[in-house]
Structure formats: C-alpha cells, structure tokens
C-alpha cells in the first residue's frame, strides 16, 4: 500500500507544474488515471465568487490524460499532448477538491485517444469534460 502511495507521489513530483498546483495521484490502472487538485486560493479565477480558474482545470485535465496514456500497457514511458478540448459545464464549488478521471478509449501505435471527466464533491454533475489526442512513444 505504501509502495503505491510512494509511486503516486513520485509520479507527480516528476511533473513540476502539476506538483506546484498541488495535484495528487489518486488511482492509476491500465490506461486510466484519477488525479485530484485540492482547492487553493492561488488558483481562483473569479475573485467575486472564489471559483477556480478554467486554466487550472485545464492543467488538471492535461495531467490526468497524460497519466492515463502513460499507464496504458501499449503506450510507454512518455507522451505529449497533440490537442485537448475542454468543455466547462459548471463552475466548481469553491472550497472543494476537483477530481479528474481520464481514460484511454483507443490506442494505436502512434496516437492515444483520451477522455476525461472532472467533478467536485457532487460527482453526479460534471464540472468539465475533456477529449484529447496524445502521442504514443514507441518503446525502443
């Protein structure tokens, strides 16, 4: 158990920007990953309401999708984003952690197609959804 926790910490530490935004790896499987980003005043986009900036949600989406690609048995040690589309369904509730679960729904020799859903404490209503294409680095 502690091994998994250590691996999870190590994974985020290897991504300086994700680490700086306070992201935590919650779960990782074969081609899926769940990453959490606790509420933080630095990430506020609307000072009137305290809602987190869309840009920070985008960073969380990109990290979760990248992690899902790297965890896929046919992909490999590294990936880069080709494109990412994010739909913002509703503002995340201020004070709550945002969690994103990303999943590779198709992987070819060159490209991984990924989808992700972000929620806050109310996981019945998504905060945002993302669709992206990522590079697949062939193993040497």
């Amino acid at each position, binding site marked *: 158990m502690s091994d998994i926790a250590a691996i999870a910490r190590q994974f985020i530490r290897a991504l300086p*920007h994700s680490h700086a935004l306070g992201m935590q790896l919650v779960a990782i499987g074969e081609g899926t990953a769940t990453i959490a980003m606790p509420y933080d005043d630095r990430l506020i986009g609307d000072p009137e309401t305290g809602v987190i*900036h*869309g*840009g*920070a949600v985008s960073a969380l989406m990109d990290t979760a999708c990248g992690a899902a690609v790297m965890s896929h048995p046919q992909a490999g040690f*590294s990936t880069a984003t080709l494109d990412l589309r994010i739909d913002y369904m509703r503002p995340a509730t201020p004070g709550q952690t945002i969690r994103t679960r990303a999943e590779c729904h198709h992987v070819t020799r060159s490209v991984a197609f990924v989808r992700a859903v972000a929620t806050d404490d109310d996981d019945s209503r998504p905060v945002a959804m993302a669709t992206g294409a990522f590079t697949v680095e062939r193993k040497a």
Partner: protein
Amino acid sequence: MKPPEPLHVIKRRREALLRSLVDGVPYIRYLGVQFDRRGDELTAVLPFRDDLIGNPRLPALHGGATAAFLEIAAMIELSWSTLWEGVEADGALPEGPLRLPKTIDFTIDYLRAGLPRDAYARARVNRSGRRYASVHVEAWQDNRARLFAQATGHFLMPPVEPKP
C-alpha cells in the same frame, strides 16, 4: 472645439482598464502572466519559471501551463476589446464589480514542445455577440512565425447592465 486629451491622461486611463482586468485575478498573478500594451493591442507574456515544466527530461513546458496561459490571453483580450470603446468614449472606467466572460469550451492545438523560456500570446476576437463570443489565440516563443500552440474558445458574455 474640445482640446485634445493630454497623452498622460489617455495612457493612465488605458493602463487602469488593463490593470482592472488583470490584477484582481489570483490565478493570473500566480502564473505570472503579464500584458504588454501598444495602443489597443495586447501581448500576453508568460515569463519562464522552473515550476512551469511538465517534462523535466526534455525539458518542456507543461501542456497545462500552456493551456492556462492561452485561456488567460483569450479571456483578457475579449474583456479588453469589449470594454475599450465605452471607456474611450466615456473617458472613465466602467463602474461596479468587474464581470469577466465565462469559458464555455476551449480547444488547444499543441504544435511543438514549449521550450524552457518566455512565451508570448496574442488573441483575436473572431465573433463577439451579445451572449456568445469566439476567440482565437496564438502563442510563440523565439519566433513569431513558429507558433508552439494555438487555441480557439467560446465564451459566455457577462450580462450588460443598463446604464442608470
């Protein structure tokens, strides 16, 4: 005939409008995004910092940092260009709390790896209606013609409050 406005008054007003859009947003301050203004043209600047890195082995900017930078550039340009005419005509900033547009969706194309150095972005409002707007934004580093990322986003405009 009205005498022309002194230059320092014009500059002070335009700077104040830009500051009112940018300075109150914690996340813009946290990322360190700055805006360079020439007349009504804005260039967003993302000064490089080690904690913007995503892949330390290359090293390359984090795709998330690039996405956030582009979204900030697009949203500020949209607010700026919407308010510009009114502020120039009235000679004063709009009253009341600042209402920023809300992002509906945002699509980022990553064209090449972001290098560990400063990045620049300029946005263009392609369509701005009463409720919805479409904005395109391009980002580059050393060479304006070699974009490293571009994006298009749709935004929901803040409701216009009738003047008293």
